[in-house]
Each structure stands twice: as C-alpha cells, then as structure tokens.
C-alpha cells in the first residue's frame, strides 16, 4: 500500500526530491496491520520549514511510543510535484512509509500560522478527502486542527472535523483512546458518534455541533451547541510538569536542508511578560519551567542521538528562566572545547542577556545579537506593555558592541494600535542613537545594526483582539518615511540595515486570524484560484485574496480595520483559553491609556483568569541544582 513506486518516477522531475523520501534519523515505520489507531500528522508548509517543527516532532514521538499506535508525517508538496501528482494520480502521502493520507484514522494538522490554510485544502484534495467536513463518510480520516491558530478555527470550520486547543502531549493520547475504543466496539454510530464522543470531553471542539447566528449588521449574535451533551465552551489543554515530558528524545534529523539544523530544547512553556500583541504569551499560560537538570539531560541525549552541533534553548523569552545563568554557564562548561554551539533566541533587552550570550559564545564567534524593543517610542512601548526604556536599550546595545559584537539586530512592529507616523519615525532616531553611542564607546566605525520591521496582526485571545488594523497604505507610507529618516544622516545610515515586509500579507493574516465561519468561502475561493503557500512572499498574491473576498461577498475592511466594541460576540468566545474576557478588556483599556502591567511571576497575581479556570499554577524554580561536568566516555 506504499505509493512510493508511483511517486519515484516523478522525483527526478521536481526540485529537491530528497524532501519527499523520508529516511530521517529518528523516523519510525511501524506495521500497519497491527496498529489499532493510525495518525497522519501534517505541518502545512514545505518540508524545510515543517520538519524542524517541535510540535509535530513531539506528538510523533509520543504517539509512536504507544505499542498499538502508528504515526507518520506529511508536509505540503511544492506546486511542481502537486502538478505531477495530479497528472499521475498519486495521492498526498506520508514521508515515513509513503502511505496515502486518506487511509489513516486521523489526520492531524498543526497550524502555527493562518497562512497555511490554503495548503490544508491542497493536502485534503490530493488525499482524496472531501474538502467539506460535512461531505465526509466513515471511510475518511477525522481531520483535526491544532497549533496556535486552532484557538480560532472558525475560518476553517468548514474543512476540519475538530480542533484541539493548547498543549498536545496528553490531548493526542486522549483522542487516541477514544478512537481506539470506538473502533474496538465496531464503530457504533459511525463518524457522528465518534465526533460526539470527542466533543463530550469538553476539550475537543467539533464545529458542526455549534450553530452560529448573526445580527442584521453582520456581527455574531450567538454561538450555541445544537446537540445534547456538547459543552457551551471548549477548554484548552495544559501539560503540567514538563520534566515528565522530555520530548523530543529522538529528534528527527533530516537529510534535506531545513530552516533549523539544531537540537532544540524548550526550556519553559508559557510567558507572563504580558506583551499585549503576543498571542503565544497569552494562550500558553501559566509559565512552566523545565528543570535545569532535565534540560542538561535532554541536551546531552539530543546531541548524542542527532549528531547536531548546535543547541537552541527555546521558549517565548528564554532569559526569564529562573536558573538561566546556571543553565548557560553549566552548558558552556560542559561543551567548552567541543564544536557544539549554543544559542538563546527570544531574549529581552537588558544587559543580563549579554552576560548569557558571552557564556554561550565561548566556543564560537560573536556574530550577531538580536533584541526586540518592538516599539519605536517610549509611548508606544507602554501601549504594547514592552517595558524597555530608551536608556536601557542604548546601554544594552553599547555593552554588546564593547564586548566584541559587531552586529546587532533590532526588531520592531509597525501598525500597532494608536500608532502615529512619529512613533515609527522614532525607530530611526533610536537606531542613529545606537550607532552614535556604539561608535563613541568602541572608537570604531566597524559596528552595524539592522532594523527589522514586522507588521502587527491583532490576534484572538489577546488584549488587542478588539483593535483596528492600519490599512496597508498607511503601513507602507510609514515604512517608506522610516527608510528616508534612517538615511537622512548618511554617515549613520550607512551602518544601519533596514528590512521590512509590505502591509498586504499582514492584512490577510488579520482577516484569517479574527475571521468567522464566513471566511471559509474566501479560503476556498483563493485556493480554487490557485492560492498555495501564502506564507511565502513569492507565492502570496494580495490581488487573489481581494478578488476572492469580492467573489464571495466578504468585506475585507469589516474584518480587519474595524475596531470591535466591548459587547460584540467574538467568533472565538466559546473557545476557552482561560483568559477572563473582562480582564482582557481591562488590559485593552490600560493599553489605550498607556498603563503598564507587571509580570505575575514576581508581583502578585493580576487575575488574568488562567490558573483558576484551568486548575493550573505557575511552575518555576529555582531548584538550586547545578549541571555537573559530563562524564568523559
């Protein structure tokens, strides 16, 4: 039942065929017949992006550790192979054993970004699975969405059978148990009964069991269950005690080149810094740390299993781990003199980070450091709750220069709520100041900074979920003015790199992020018009999206630049991230008045609602333990 014999003759005709053949270290091929429950897991982007994805790797391993469960992976195929697969009748396949995705019990798709929605449709279509969930029969897999975008799956409600919110480790095992039991009983009640059993867990959202009513003005009136036993609200899952879940243990090591060639350890999950634009920080609460000793064991084992020479210590704000100093110096000691390099992405703007970076760069060169002040003016940083003073920022960057770093990258956003032209122009002044101070402190002209700008997209379950987006023309005008302001001083401007994205893709991401079920028709139309890989600028077409909106009668502005008021029913209100809607509204009001919110790890609880709603608690150290020297082999 492998389709490899049909696929193989097509591979010499496509670019980078290695991405379709599997054979990675850590990959698992199990016997089909003896598996009671079979999962196909998809990251709906190209292999080079999807393979390193932590979520898929973790679930793949957790599922395959179950003796009677089989999990394989599939990724979005590039248009060159898609065309050949259609021509030769080759279905969407898994890379592990090249089995047709349509043969599995469950098809789990992890959405890190909404721009992967059109790729879901391609995969379903190639798999021979009806695009619309209502057209599927008992012969088709249950299509299950996960990942951060699943916190508002309404735009893809037509296409998925179910969605799971939050951490996946335990959720996939619970779903597996339900499917296993239903199959063992002889599939009573068919697909409908299985979905009902999943919905009754109160942590699996089955869109078909909810009706959405609309007001005459287009806003949602209400969302209510249409079946007995289906909960009014579906709750997110939270994996507590990460030391009990030290995955990936056997990381997947690809032959193809991918975006990250490293062993990644999540050093903690969740973040309570409270940056108001950050959906990840809001929906993954509370903070749960991995202990220093588990991190040390995972790094040692991960390097051994993979042969990688780079280790990434990942989280939403890695320098915030309660024992990050000991972790960095301990790992630097253990790997000193080897060719292993350590990296700490996602760090705050403060001098402590430079101390950490110095520890981590003992083996390597001081190539670049990244800081994310996010907002150009002090005023806008108060709005987004990114508490960095200009003085701190400049002092931190200058410290980096004087400690031997030549290149510093600064991340900002454009299009933030209440933003004015001046807020954006302040980025230029800040960058000039950084170079001027850096030159003075080092006495060298050989220092650079890169200003990198991302477009702000308001996300569900954040204080900015009510905000209006700035139209792309406004964004593009501000970005052009910023370029002019940076280059206004030619001496300083020469030392400053400038990278940005146009406003148009952000607007579409905004449509998909806060869309409701009526957006499904737009996604379907875009896909029918040839939309694929919308997260890639060379494939994204704004004209295709606006045409699709016009074709199906959706007002793009109504979904994006319109500000919502306190009473509006939001499309995701029946999906429970634990955050109290009143608290979110208060935080939105605080944003508008520039009132900052502290972090609940070191100040009293500010009642965001997550811990009591989810029966969870902050899990942080310090444990007081240390990393011991590695025993020589």
């Amino acid at each position, binding site marked *: 039942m492998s389709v490899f014999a049909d696929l193989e003759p097509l*591979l010499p005709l496509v670019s980078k065929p290695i991405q379709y053949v599997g*054979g990675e270290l850590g990959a698992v091929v199990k016997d089909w017949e003896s598996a009671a429950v079979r999962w196909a897991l998809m990251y709906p982007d190209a292999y080079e992006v999807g393979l390193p994805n932590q979520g898929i790797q973790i679930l793949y391993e957790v599922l395959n550790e179950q003796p009677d469960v089989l999990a394989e992976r599939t990724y979005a195929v590039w248009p060159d192979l898609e065309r050949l697969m259609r021509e030769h009748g080759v279905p969407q396949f898994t890379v592990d054993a090249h089995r047709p995705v349509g043969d599995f019990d469950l098809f789990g798709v992890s959405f890190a970004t909404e721009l992967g929605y059109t790729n879901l449709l391609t995969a379903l279509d190639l798999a021979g699975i009806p695009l619309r969930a209502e057209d599927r029969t008992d012969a088709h897999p249950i299509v299950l969405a996960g990942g951060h975008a699943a916190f508002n799956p309404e735009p893809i409600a037509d296409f998925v059978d179910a969605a799971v919110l939050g951490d996946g480790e335990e959720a996939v095992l619970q779903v597996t148990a339900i499917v296993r039991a239903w199959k063992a009983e002889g599939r009573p009640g068919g697909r409908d009964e299985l979905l009902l059993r999943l919905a009754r867990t109160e942590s699996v959202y089955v869109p078909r069991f909810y009706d959405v009513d609309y007001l005459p003005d287009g806003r949602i009136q209400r969302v209510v269950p249409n079946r007995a036993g289906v909960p009014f609200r579906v709750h997110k899952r939270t994996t507590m005690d990460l030391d009990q879940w030290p995955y990936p243990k056997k990381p997947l090591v690809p*032959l193809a080149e991918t975006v990250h060639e490293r062993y990644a350890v999540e050093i903690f999950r969740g973040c309570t810094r409270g940056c108001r634009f950050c959906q990840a920080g809001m929906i993954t609460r509370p903070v749960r740390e991995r202990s220093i000793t588990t991190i040390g064991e995972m790094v040692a084992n991960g390097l051994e299993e993979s042969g990688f020479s780079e280790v990434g210590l990942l989280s939403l704000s890695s320098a915030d781990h309660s024992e990050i100093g000991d972790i960095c110096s301990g790992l630097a000691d253990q790997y000193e003199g080897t060719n292993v390099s350590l990296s700490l992405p996602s760090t705050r703007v403060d001098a402590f980070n430079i101390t950490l970076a110095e520890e981590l760069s003992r083996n390597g060169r001081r190539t670049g450091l990244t800081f994310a002040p996010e907002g150009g003016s002090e005023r806008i940083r108060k709005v987004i709750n990114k508490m960095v003073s200009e003085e701190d920022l400049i002092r931190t960057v200058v410290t980096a220069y004087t400690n031997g770093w030549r290149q510093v990258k600064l991340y900002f956003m454009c299009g933030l709520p209440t933003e004015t032209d001046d807020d954006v122009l302040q980025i230029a002044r800040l960058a000039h100041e950084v170079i001027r101070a850096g030159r003075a402190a080092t006495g060298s002209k050989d220092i650079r900074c890169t200003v990198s700008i991302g477009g702000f997209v308001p996300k569900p379950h954040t204080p900015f979920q009510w905000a209006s987006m700035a139209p792309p023309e406004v964004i593009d005008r501000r970005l052009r003015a910023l370029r002019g302001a940076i280059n206004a001083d030619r001496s300083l401007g020469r030392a400053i790199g400038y990278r940005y994205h146009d406003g148009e893709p952000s607007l579409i991401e905004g449509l998909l992020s806060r869309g409701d079920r009526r957006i499904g028709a737009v996604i379907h139309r875009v896909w029918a018009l040839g939309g694929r890989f919308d997260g890639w600028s060379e494939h994204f077409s704004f004209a295709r999206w606006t045409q699709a909106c016009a074709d199906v009668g959706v007002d793009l502005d109504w979904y994006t630049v319109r500000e919502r008021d306190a009473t509006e029913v939001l499309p995701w209100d029946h999906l429970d991230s634990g955050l109290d809607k009143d608290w979110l509204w208060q935080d939105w009001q605080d944003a508008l008045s520039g009132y900052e919110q502290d972090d609940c790890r070191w100040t009293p609880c500010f009642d965001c609602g997550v811990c009591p709603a989810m029966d969870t608690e902050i899990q942080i150290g310090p444990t007081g333990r240390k990393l011991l020297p590695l025993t020589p*082999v």
Partner: protein
Amino acid sequence: MSRKPQPEGGQAPVVQRIRLRYAKRGPLRFTSHRDFARAFERALRRARVPIAFSQGFTPHPKISYASAAPTGVASEAEYLEIALQAVVDPAVVREALHAALSPGLDVLDAVEVRAAGSLADRIDASRWRIELPGVEPADAQRAVTAFLAAAEVAVERLTKQGMRTFDARGPVVALVASAVPDEAGEVPCAILDLVVRQVTPSVRPDDILSGLRVVADLVPPVPPRATRLAQGTLTAGGEIVDPLDADRDGAVVGEP
C-alpha cells in the same frame, strides 16, 4: 603583510588518514552532495570519530570528497578521505559510521592511507549502469550503435557557468546495451553498461542519454535509473581498479 589573527590554542594535529567507500542506495539516491556532507558530519559526531579540524575561528572537519555522483543517481562507489587527530582501527570507524548514517547511505569499506597519491589521482573513470524502463532493448541497441559510430556527439547541459555544449562521445570507453531478463507481461526495460573517463566538464549518465537522443532520437518514457557501480583507475584492459587497493597493497608491503 599582516597575518590574520588566529584563535588561541589551535587544533590538534592530524595523525592518521582514512579513506572510505560508501553507497547511495534506493530512495536515498536523491540525497544531494551537500545533503550527504551535512549528514556525514553529523554521523562523525554521533560515531565519536576523532576527526581533525582546520585552523581558524570557524574550524571545519577535515573531509575531502572524490567526485560525487549527481543527485538522483545511485552509487555503489563514492569515496572520501577523513583526517583524524587520534589513531583508530579503520574497520571500527567503518562500522560506527555505517550505523550512524540513515540506511541507504551505507559505508562499505575503510582503509588507512598508506600509499602516496591522492584519491583524485587514482580516479580517472567510472562504470555506470543505466536502466531504461519502457525502452525496447532493440531501440537502445540501435541508438548505442549510432552513438559509438559517431566521432563526436555534441550535447548541452545547464551548469553553474550557464548552458554549456561539449562532446559526450570522446570520454566514453565502453557502452553496451542489453535487456532485463524477460519477465512475461512486464514492460520492456533496456540496460546500458557504460564506462566513461573523468574529464572536465564531467560527462555523466544524463549526458550520454542526451547523446542517444541527439544521434537516434531515443527518448525514455520515464526517467531512467542510473547507478555508479565503480570508479577508479582505468587499466589498459578497460577494467576499473578500486582506488583503495593501493592503500591496502601498501599495508601488505609495509607489514613484516
């Protein structure tokens, strides 16, 4: 002239060199040379091979590759050389690297370097087997006859330098067509057995197929499957000698 600054300490000296023969088989024939190089460096770490590193701020493991088969072409005879900072048993290294690479990237042989001359010095020709599913053996035979009868067969290929035209006939030492033993009802499949000299630009199986199209309009209906069976020193008798033999022979000579 000022010297480039060097990091303190420096790298351990090279005390041993080992040459390996490896295969690229089945689906993993789609591994590109760059893909293989990354996988091999990771395998060196997993297998804890005491590889030597170059000097400088970004030390690189000392690995040198002999000419690599193109992406999509299988091989039973790829060669590389590694420099080590500690002496190890080549057989142990072979086994450890074989286990550390994905199945399909198989390490077949390892010998310590004993004789003079680089790998490249000992490789001047390759033997290839090209399967042509869907091609009638008689058609293949006609094309081969026409190809061999020509004094020169100009073919084009897109290289890094752009489209280049070169002669595919000159470097061909031998080209023989045969048929896959008949299996009733199966699609026909011709086989080409090819020996070609290493020249610049290199003439590869796809160039020979371009040549067969030029001289006899032979166009396989599906992509052919090529495998490098051997590469090494071409003898007067047309045989290819394994480039590791000289080191093996050197070992025999050197032992008491």
